């Protein structure tokens, strides 16, 4: 099967430092992938290059066979790739419902229906009219999560979905992610919480100092000496 996302020798420099230094990855559709690595390994930069927030200096990124490096984020979104952010980025002065409505260009009635559906999915229907800025951290996280789903993207990038989230909510999120995978969507997540990664992801990529260190099933990665070294030092 053709990979849904291909990253070919991507390099991204900031000043003199290469945050991402020749990384190549290939993701098959319908699976859950994890991207891990110690702090400063380039995970978020790579994420940003994929989603168009940053421009890669070298290399190519292909989504469904089309080159997306150089496209603007909103164009990549409309090709079928959505993302969430490490620091929650809901629109605080818009209501939860409005946060969802702004995303689609579908007719208002259809959009509202879908928005309310998604809100019901995460049991937030009664907060539809509440300003997103007034919601609790966990509620905002959920709104950001379902916001990505408004246009039914084929691929979803989650930037540290477990950050600051309590156990119950986390399990709900993880279940939701598995359901998305069952629907045929591809998920790539950046995460620090090893339990989450090992329990959820089918394949894990490990970055260190901007380069791909290892790739494989969670169990294999956990036992890989190089990975252990990267995290805990020599």
């Amino acid at each position, binding site marked *: 099967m053709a990979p849904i996302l291909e990253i070919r020798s991507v390099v991204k420099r900031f000043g003199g430092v290469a945050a991402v230094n020749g990384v190549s990855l290939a993701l098959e559709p319908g699976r859950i992938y994890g991207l891990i690595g110690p702090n400063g390994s380039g995970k978020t930069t790579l994420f940003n290059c994929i989603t168009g927030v940053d421009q890669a200096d070298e290399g190519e990124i292909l989504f469904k066979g089309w080159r997306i490096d150089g496209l*603007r*984020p909103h164009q990549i*979104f409309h090709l079928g790739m959505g993302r969430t952010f490490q620091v929650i980025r809901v*629109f*605080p002065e*818009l209501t939860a419902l*409005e946060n969802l409505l*702004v*995303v*689609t260009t579908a007719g208002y009635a259809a959009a509202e229906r879908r928005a309310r559906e998604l809100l019901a999915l995460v049991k937030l229907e009664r907060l539809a009219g509440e300003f997103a800025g007034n919601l609790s951290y966990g509620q905002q996280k959920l709104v950001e999560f379902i916001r990505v789903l408004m246009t039914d993207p084929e691929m979803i990038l989650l930037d540290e979905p477990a950050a600051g989230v309590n156990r119950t909510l986390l399990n709900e999120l993880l279940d939701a992610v598995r359901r998305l995978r069952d629907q045929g969507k591809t998920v790539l997540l950046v995460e620090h919480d090893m339990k989450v990664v090992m329990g959820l992801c089918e394949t894990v990529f490990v970055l260190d100092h901007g380069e791909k260190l290892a790739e494989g099933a969670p169990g294999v990665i956990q036992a890989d000496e190089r990975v252990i070294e990267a995290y805990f030092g020599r």
Partner: protein
Amino acid sequence: MKRWFPVGLVVLAVGLALYPLQATGYGVRVMLQLFMWIALAQSWNLISGLTGYVSFGHVVFFGTGAYAASILIVTLGWAWPLACLGGGVVAAALAFLIGWPCLRLKGPYFAIATLGLNEVMRVVVSYYEGLTGGGNGLSLPTLHASVEIYYAMGLVAAVVTAVTYVIVTSRFGLRLMTIREDEVAAEAMGIDTLRYKLYAFLLSAAAPGIVGGLSARDQGYIEPLSVFPLIMTITMIVMALFGGKGTIWGPVLGAAVLFAFQEVVWARFIYLHQLLFGAIIVGVVLLMPRGILGVLQQKYNLPRTI
């Protein structure tokens, strides 16, 4: 509450429509200026209140409209209503030309760029003396049309307010606000922020262009210094801020209050006026940056249609 507001509006509209029948010439010209400031503050609100991109040279659209309309009247003999609409079109075209590159800039840089644009236009207008009369200004053929212009200004002010209402209650307006809230997230959610900013900028330039033409027609004479002054940009900004930027009626409220203040103080304490105005600017920025309606909205959880 909800019911008598539209009724009150209609009453007000009728009252304003009948006003010229019994007001003095001076009274008509004063109200005409009030309508002009409402249109200006409301227009600035469209770009800067909604998207958060601070247009610090917004008066450039007023001045450009003034000159475009005047040139159409003087050189091509157009009737003033059409010429003023022409002024609005030219202003919008300028907004497109400048917005296309400059709306990609981040906050402070966009503000500086628009300020620069205002200065450039002022100089350009002074330079093409043949067309614009340069530093000596441009005189329009004599015409006593204050009452007609009163209605025209009032119409523009009403239309801009109505357009603001339509935008704020639509998804287009919501998307503009997402640009203000978090532009990165907006882009990531599929919103072509450059296109939306451009639309807002165009819309925000049209009305100043038209009222610039109307003002020029009313005064009968314009010169670069009188139609491109920074103080006019500041005034429309402070009016919008005072009433509440990002709201629908805020700029109207701010324009009304500050215009009344200006009329009263300027007439009597001309030197004190400037200092007081400076103090008001500082006061608004420090004490009530959300403006009257903004504060009320937050405190009493009022709907966005305020």
